[in-house]
């Protein structure tokens, strides 16, 4: 398995031999930032295309196929259009909050993006409290949504934002608890350690039933946090026209749009990291030949493969179910997910104490 940290360390040392400490850090920060931004944009574009095609296939149609071969340039065309579309100045808005809100949403998702280990050694920063960090920053996005809803001075936006607040506060709990279940199993918060511990078998197989339950709950809660159907109440198209971003146009709307897709990716990658071993290949204890074959596949491919598989699942759910109503949404969380999660956590603690895991 190729370790990308060799490359990064080499670059770091190379720079250090010629430049003072300050400049080395400055250059590295900029480079990492730019690479991350580019990756962010590219992933978003790919995802938009990916979703459109998959959605079309679920709906018995073909989806974009006239812009480039198989329509692969569709999202680029969308982006080009969006970039130069007029941004309408709106009267009676809270100007500062209105213009700040899209950035908040994007920055929140970008911050989370930075901590994701994309491959062996490919991680911008590796906190020792990684899981905690992910949970903390990924929920910042809702502040942007609330700001957008409030500042727009539009009743639809307002209702959308309020719904979003209620939704996020509740589902953050489930997401946190299900991740906590896995932290109990791994005994560590650092993402690299968590992945390292899954080198033999992924956590989802290690932790028996509780791990599977936690996985499912995390997927549901994560799905809800990204505000996508069937949990897309904040922007519920048929009720609130476009919800919290009703008044946004052009690039500002583009940012919301981008962040929505990126959030989907982030949730999928957190689930991949914590439950499916991140970039770790699929190993079966005892079958060395098989394991070696698996090792030949690059870690990045493993990571993105798993993440996309999870995203496919999320799209599948999204394009099948009707939207929940706000009270049902809260029922689901407080009456079903949360109690199940609590019991699940207890069982997991028991399993770990008794040492029943692999």
């Amino acid at each position: 398995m190729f370790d990308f940290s060799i490359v990064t360390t080499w670059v770091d040392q190379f720079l250090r031999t010629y430049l003072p400490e300050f400049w080395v850090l400055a250059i590295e920060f900029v480079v990492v930032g730019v690479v991350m931004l580019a990756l962010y944009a590219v992933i978003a574009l790919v995802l938009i295309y990916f979703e459109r095609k998959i959605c079309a296939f679920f709906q018995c149609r073909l989806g974009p196929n006239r812009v480039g071969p198989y329509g692969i340039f569709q999202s680029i065309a969308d982006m080009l259009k969006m970039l130069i579309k007029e941004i309408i100045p709106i009267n009676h808005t809270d100007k500062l909050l209105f213009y700040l809100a899209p950035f908040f949403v994007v920055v929140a998702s970008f911050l989370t993006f930075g901590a994701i280990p994309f491959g062996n050694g490919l991680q911008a920063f590796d906190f020792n409290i990684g899981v905690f960090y992910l949970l903390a920053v990924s929920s910042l996005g809702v502040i942007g949504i609330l700001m957008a809803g409030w500042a727009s001075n539009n009743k639809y936006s307002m209702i959308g934002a309020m719904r979003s607040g209620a939704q996020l506060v509740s589902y953050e709990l489930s997401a946190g608890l299900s991740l906590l279940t896995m932290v109990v199993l791994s005994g560590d918060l650092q993402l690299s350690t968590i992945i390292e511990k899954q080198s033999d078998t992924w956590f989802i197989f290690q932790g028996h039933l509780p791990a599977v339950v936690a996985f499912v709950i995390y997927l549901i809660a994560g799905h809800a946090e990204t505000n996508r159907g069937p949990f897309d109440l904040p922007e519920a198209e048929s009720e609130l026209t476009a919800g919290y971003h009703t008044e946004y146009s052009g690039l500002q709307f583009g940012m919301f749009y981008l962040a929505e897709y990126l959030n989907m990716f982030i949730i999928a990658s957190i689930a991949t990291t914590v439950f499916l071993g991140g970039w770790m290949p699929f190993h079966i204890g005892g079958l060395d030949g098989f394991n070696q074959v698996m090792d030949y596949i690059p870690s990045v491919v493993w990571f993105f493969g798993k993440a996309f598989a999870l995203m496919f699942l999320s799209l599948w759910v999204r394009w099948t179910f009707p939207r929940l109503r706000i009270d049902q949404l809260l029922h689901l969380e407080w009456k079903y997910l949360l109690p199940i999660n609590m019991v699940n956590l207890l069982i997991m603690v028991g399993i770990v104490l008794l040492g029943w895991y692999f």
Partner: protein
Amino acid sequence: MKSIYTYIKSVLNGIKSLLTGMSVTIREFFTKKVTEQYPENRATLYVPERYRGVLVMPHDENNEHACTACGICEMNCPNGTIKVLSKMIEPEEPGGKPKKVLDKHLYDLGMCTFCNLCVISCPSNAIIFENSFEHSLYTREKLKQQLNKEGSKLREKKKPQA
């Protein structure tokens, strides 16, 4: 205890119903798509004969049509889509009556409701609906058409109908 049982049962039933739904969509995911690819399929596109796309006045090879300018179509049209302008021509041989012939048969495609009343009421079958549909334009005026071609004449009765 019973409440726990119903609770678990409702959870499982809910999950089952969701999975049934998902099984339907995944089945559709892999079935053949029904999309017809217009305009790629222009050559093979089947538009039924009877489809009413635009009103036309068929002309034969001698540039002759069957319209006698009687104006029945204009009268029957519910919203004034058709205007029949006639003119009097002097008789060829002296002593004959002046004849009323068609000057312009004006038709506004942008106003037509395709109710077919003009066609069924036409006593000489001079106009029919054609099944073409590619008529989008950039200007409103061009939708107003003249159905009889320049220099066309009324087909003589004696001639066998084409």
